[in-house]
C-alpha cells in the first residue's frame, strides 16, 4: 500500500513539477518519506547501469543512452542530472507501472560520487562505470581518497565494474572484486613519458604509498603507472583505444572501430571509450556503438562558439575547482596553431556566496598558456587579483597579461580591436556573464 502510494505521489508530483517547471528531486523526496525502501520494492530492468566519477559522468551517460537506444533498447535515465537518491527515485518511479515494474530494458543512472552508497543500499547496478577520480570540487569533496572511501560501500560484490585502467586511484576499486572490465588508452598522439601538472597525485601508490613509475602518461597522472613495491599497475585492458590522433580528430578502438571526434579533447576520448565499453558489456554490437559515437555532438557540450567584433571565439567550460578539467582545456588551447587571446574569468566560485576558497587556482597548470601563439591573457571577474597573483608565478611574460575586473569591459576591450581567435576559459556559473556580450553560434 505504501509502495503504491509512493509511486502515485511521485508520478503526480512529477507531472505537476513539469507543469510548473520545478526540478525532479522533490517528488522522489516525498516518495522516500512515504516508503523509505521503495527502491528495494520496485522491479528493475535486467540491466541497471550506473556511472560515477570526477569527470565525464554526464557526457558518458548521454552517449550510453544514445547507443543503447540505437541498439533497440528502451532506456530510462535521470536526464535532468538530479543524481542523488531523490532524483534517482523520481526517475525510477516516474517510469514504473503502478505495480512497481520499471518499463525499460535498461535503467541508466548518473550517480553523484558522494551519494552513490545511499542510492545503492536498496538496489545495485549490474554494471557500474567509474570514469576517474581526481581533485574535483574539494570544498564539497574533501579530496579524491575521501571520495574513494565514499564510493566503496556502493559497490556490491555482484556488480560488474567497468573501470579506467589508466587512473591509478579509481583502478583500486578492483581490489578484492571479481567481476571487472577495463578500458584504457594505448600510447597515442598526445602521450608523454611522465606526469604533468603542478601537483603529482600519481607520485605515490594509493595502496601502499611507495613511489610509482610511469611508462607513459596521457594527461596529468593518467596513464601506465607501476608501483615500485606492491604490484599495483595499469592492468591489461578489455576495451582499448589502440590509436588516437587528436590533431586529426580520429581514434581507433580495439584495432577495428574507427571514430571521428566532434570535439578533439582527451576527455571526449575517455568518455567515448567508457560509453563504448558499457554498451558492449550489455550486448550492443561494435558497429552499432561506433555508428552512434562517430561525430557525436554532445547535447550538454562544454564548448560554445561565438563571434565578438572581428574575433571568432570558443568558450571552454570547466568546472571551477577542477584543476584537471582546466588543464585539459588549457592544453586544448595550447594545441591550436593560430595566434590567439585567452580570457580567463573567475567571478563566482560558489553560486550562493563569496568564498575564500581559491586554492584550486594554484593547482591549475596555467603555464600551459606560455606558448608563442597565446599573445595576450585577460584575467577578469571578482577574483581577477587572485588570478593575477597566480599568473605572476607562471613563466608567461607580464606584458601579455591584462587584468580587468569587469567582464563586460573585458569583452568591450576585445571587441574594440583585433581579429585574432579568442578562447574563454570559465565555469558554468560564470559563462553566461560573457555570453551576454557576444553573438553565439548555433
Amino acid at each position, binding site marked *: 500500500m505504501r509502495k503504491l502510494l509512493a509511486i502515485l505521489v511521485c508520478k503526480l508530483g512529477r507531472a505537476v513539477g513539469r507543469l510548473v517547471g520545478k526540478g525532479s528531486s522533490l517528488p522522489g523526496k516525498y516518495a522516500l518519506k512515504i516508503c523509505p525502501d521503495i527502491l528495494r520494492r520496485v522491479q528493475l530492468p535486467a540491466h541497471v547501469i550506473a556511472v560515477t566519477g570526477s569527470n565525464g559522468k554526464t557526457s558518458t551517460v548521454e552517449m550510453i543512452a544514445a547507443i543503447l537506444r540505437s541498439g533497440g533498447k528502451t532506456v530510462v535515465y535521470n536526464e535532468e542530472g538530479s543524481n542523488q537518491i531523490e532524483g534517482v527515485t523520481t526517475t525510477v518511479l516516474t517510469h514504473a507501472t503502478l505495480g512497481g515494474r520499471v518499463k525499460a530494458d535498461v535503467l541508466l543512472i548518473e550517480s553523484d560520487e558522494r551519494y552513490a552508497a545511499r542510492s545503492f543500499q536498496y538496489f545495485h547496478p549490474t554494471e557500474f562505470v567509474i570514469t576517474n577520480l581526481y*581533485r574535483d570540487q*574539494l*570544498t*564539497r569533496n*574533501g*579530496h*579524491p*581518497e*575521501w571520495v574513494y572511501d565514499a564510493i566503496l560501500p556502493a559497490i556490491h560484490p555482484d556488480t560488474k565494474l567497468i573501470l579506467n585502467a589508466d587512473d591509478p586511484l579509481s583502478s583500486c576499486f578492483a581490489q578484492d572484486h571479481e567481476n571487472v572490465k577495463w578500458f584504457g588508452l594505448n600510447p597515442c598522439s598526445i602521450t608523454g613519458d611522465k606526469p604533468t601538472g*603542478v*601537483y*603529482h*597525485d600519481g*607520485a*605515490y601508490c*594509493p595502496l601502499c*604509498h611507495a613511489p610509482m613509475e610511469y611508462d607513459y602518461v596521457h594527461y596529468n597522472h593518467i596513464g601506465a603507472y607501476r608501483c615500485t613495491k606492491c604490484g599495483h599497475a595499469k592492468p591489461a585492458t578489455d576495451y582499448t583505444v589502440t590509436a588516437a590522433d587528436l590533431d586529426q580528430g580520429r581514434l581507433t578502438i580495439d584495432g577495428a572501430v574507427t571514430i571521428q571526434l566532434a570535439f578533439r579533447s582527451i576527455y571526449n576520448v575517455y568518455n567515448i571509450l567508457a560509453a563504448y565499453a558499457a554498451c558492449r558489456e550489455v550486448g550492443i554490437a561494435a558497429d552499432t556503438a561506433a555508428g552512434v559515437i562517430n561525430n557525436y555532438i554532445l547535447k550538454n557540450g562544454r564548448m560554445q562558439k561565438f563571434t565578438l567584433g572581428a574575433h571568432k571565439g570558443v568558450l571552454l567550460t570547466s568546472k571551477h575547482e577542477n584543476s584537471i578539467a582546466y588543464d585539459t582545456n588549457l592544453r586544448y588551447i595550447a594545441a591550436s596553431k593560430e595566434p590567439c587571446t585567452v580570457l580567463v574569468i573567475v567571478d563566482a566560485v560558489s553560486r550562493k*556566496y*563569496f*568564498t*575564500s*576558497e*581559491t*586554492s*584550486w*587556482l*594554484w*593547482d591549475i597548470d596555467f603555464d600551459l598558456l606560455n606558448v608563442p601563439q597565446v599573445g595576450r591573457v585577460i584575467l577578469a571577474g*571578482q*577574483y581577477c*587579483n*587572485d588570478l*593575477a*597573483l597566480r599568473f*605572476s*608565478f607562471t613563466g608567461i611574460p607580464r606584458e601579455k597579461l591584462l*587584468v580587468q575586473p569587469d567582464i563586460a569591459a573585458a569583452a568591450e576591450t576585445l571587441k574594440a580591436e583585433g581579429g585574432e581567435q579568442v578562447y574563454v576559459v570559465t565555469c558554468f556559473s560564470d559563462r553566461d556573464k560573457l555570453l551576454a556580450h557576444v553573438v553565439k553560434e548555433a
Partner: protein
Amino acid sequence: MELKIIHFYPDLMSLYGSYANVAVLKRYLEELGNTVTVETVVPGEAADLSGADFLFMGAGTERAQKAALADFVRYGEAVKAAAENGTAALFAGTAMELLGKTITAADGTVYESIGLGSFTSVQGRQRFVEDVYGATDLYSEAVVGFMNKCSSIEGVETPLLTTLDMGFGNSGEKTPEGFRFQNVLASELTGPILVKNPRLLEHVVRAIYARRSQTPPAELPRWAYAEEAYTITEEQLRLRWQKAQG
C-alpha cells in the same frame, strides 16, 4: 642572506595548492635581496635540517598524512630543537597534526606524533568545510581562509587564530584555530594561507630575519594583487559574518 627552506614531502603532502606558501615566501625573500634555496625532503631519503631558516609541510589526505608521519618521526627531535631556537615554520592542513602528541584515525588506530605541542587530533567520518574569518595575536588584521578537515583537535594552549567569528576551529564552531610555538605556525586552514594573508607572510619573513639577528626593511614591500585580493576577501567575508549577526 643565503636562506634555506626545507619543504617536507612536496608530492605526498600537496593538497589545496599548499606549495604556493613556499613559492610566495621564496619570491618575497628574494625580492628583499636574499638568495633562497629550497630543499625537498622525500620519504626514505636522508635530509639535513641544520641551518634551515624555514620548515614547511603542506596538507595531505588522511592516508598520505600517515605515510608522511611514518617518515617524519625520525626528524622529530631535530624539528623540536629547531623550534626551540626560533626557526620559522609552517605546517599547513593535516601536517599540523604531526606536531601534536597523537593522531587517532577514523578507524580508531592511534599514531604517535612528534609532540612539539601537547594536543591530540581525532579524525572522523565527517568533513568540516567552510570559510573562516578570525583574529590572531600576531597582528591586528583579520585572518581569512578556508577550512577543509575531518579532525577535532583538543589541547592546544597557544592557537594561531585566537578567536574565530566564522568557521570551524580546532575543536568546533568558532573555537580557536591552529597552533603556535615561538615561530612555528600550524593551521588546518587549507592551501595557500600565506598567499591569502599578506600580513602572515610578513610575520614569517620577520621571524626568519630575527633568528638571523637581522632586521628587514621597516617598510616591507607589498604586492598589489595580493593586497587587493586580501582586501576583497576580507571585506566579503566580514559582510557575510555581519549579515549572519543580523
